[in-house]
Each structure stands twice: as C-alpha cells, then as structure tokens.
C-alpha cells in the first residue's frame, strides 16, 4: 500500500516488479475501498487489521500535520500484519525540529505548526507543511508511541548522487511489525 499516494506511479511499479496486489491510498480519493484505491484519512483506513504486508510513504510523511504522523503510525500498527514492513523515503531529519512551509498555502489554511519547531519559509515550494524531525522528535513522535509494535532502523543514503545529482533524499526509515 502506498500511503498518501495521490498520482504516484509507485503502486503500479511494485505490481509489475513483484506481481503483488498494490493499493494506492489518499485522502483525495473517494471514500472507501474502490478497486485498488483507498480513499479517506490515512489515520483511520477502511481496511481490516493485518490488511497489508508492506506500506510505503514516499514524499508523504512530512505532510502529516499536527499529530497526524503519530496517529498514522498507530494506524499502521493495526493494518500491517506481523512481519510486515513500512518504508519512509525520504525521512527528513535535521539537527533541530523544523517545519518548512510555503506561506501562500499555509496562511490561507491557517496551519498550526509544531510548537518547538523552527518554521522555514519556502517561497514557491507549493506545499503548506513539511516536517523535519530532530533525532529527539523522531523518537518522541514516532518510535516511542509504537515501540512495542515496531522495530525501527534508519538508513543513511550515502551515495544517492550516483543515481542523480538532483536526489535530495538523505535518510530513509524502515519499520518492521513485530
């Protein structure tokens, strides 16, 4: 399942590579399960416990506002079967908690930012919320609340520029359902 998939080709690529059943989830889709699309809130998905073996979040976790990221991982603990995995790429990390925003989008939506975060103003970015975790907020928001359900590893993508110089992913997160 590709969470917050919007128009991503990832589900189809995975289907071709691994001959799996792939679902795309997004709040922008019609509510409910419609074919391979799952619409509605990612934090309360209309699927049974243990529905998924693998979940991907590509360029998506950073956009979960408020406590949405915390609630998302609690939901992933429910929908992932034992031994299942969730991968987050990129995992945005920084030496202090931060949120990046394009004010053109966030002001009109009256977005609330994490109280401890430095807010960076990104003109022309076109998104209203992108969270960068510090190691401490990653622990507090993601690892500790679901620590009994997941074992986590952080990957440092040390030579991503060999694929293309434009690649900005520096870290990835892998969580395995216990």
């Amino acid at each position: 399942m590709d969470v917050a998939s919007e128009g991503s080709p990832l589900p189809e690529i995975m289907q071709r590579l691994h001959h799996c059943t792939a679902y795309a989830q997004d709040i922008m889709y019609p509510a409910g399960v419609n074919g391979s699309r799952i619409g509605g809130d990612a934090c309360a998905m209309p699927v049974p416990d243990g529905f998924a073996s693998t979940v991907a979040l590509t360029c998506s976790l950073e956009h979960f506002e408020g406590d949405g990221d915390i609630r998302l991982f609690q939901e992933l603990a429910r929908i992932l079967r034992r031994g299942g995995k969730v991968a987050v790429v990129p995992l945005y990390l920084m030496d202090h908690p931060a949120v990046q925003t394009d004010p053109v989008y966030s002001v009109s939506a009256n977005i609330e930012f994490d109280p401890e975060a430095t807010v960076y103003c990104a003109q022309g970015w076109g998104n209203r919320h992108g969270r960068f975790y510090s190691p401490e907020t990653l622990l507090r928001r993601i690892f500790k609340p679901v620590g009994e359900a997941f074992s986590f590893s952080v990957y440092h993508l040390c030579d991503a520029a060999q694929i293309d110089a434009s690649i900005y992913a520096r870290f990835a997160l892998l969580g395995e359902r216990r």
Partner: protein
Amino acid sequence: MPNYTYQPALEDLDHEAASIQLRERILNRIEPEWANNNAPGVIAAVMDRLRGYGIPLIDLEVGRREHQQHLSERAIANYTRPTTQTT
C-alpha cells in the same frame, strides 16, 4: 504527497502578503529561507545523535544497488504515466 483536500491556486495569492501574515501569526519563529538539512555538519550531527540513542543506523549505497537492480531500472524506464491522472 500532501494529505489534504484543498489548495488555492498559487497565482491567486500574493507571496509577500502571505509571508507577512505568517510572520505576524508566529512571531520570532519563522526563518525567511528554505530548510537545509544538507548544511555542513547537519547530517553528521544527526547521525551521531541517532547512534547515541541506540537507533540502528545503516549506511545504504543506493547508487551501487540501483545499478545492480536491472529489473527495477527496466520497470521504471518502461513505465508510462496514465493520461487520466489529475495531478
């Protein structure tokens, strides 16, 4: 991908006005620049602190692995984006 339902059209809004409104709402918290987690020392500092907390941290040579994954390369190269997408 964004997890929300509404975005105003960029051309309909004024960036400078929005920036001022944002500053007024969150005084002393806004930096007039993009976040840069690539700044010198940031990645090393992050990795040191992750290790300090005992978090498993693994170097992944994605470049080399990518070159070895011919199947992945073919699948992505052959992928044709559907014309019915809304974004």
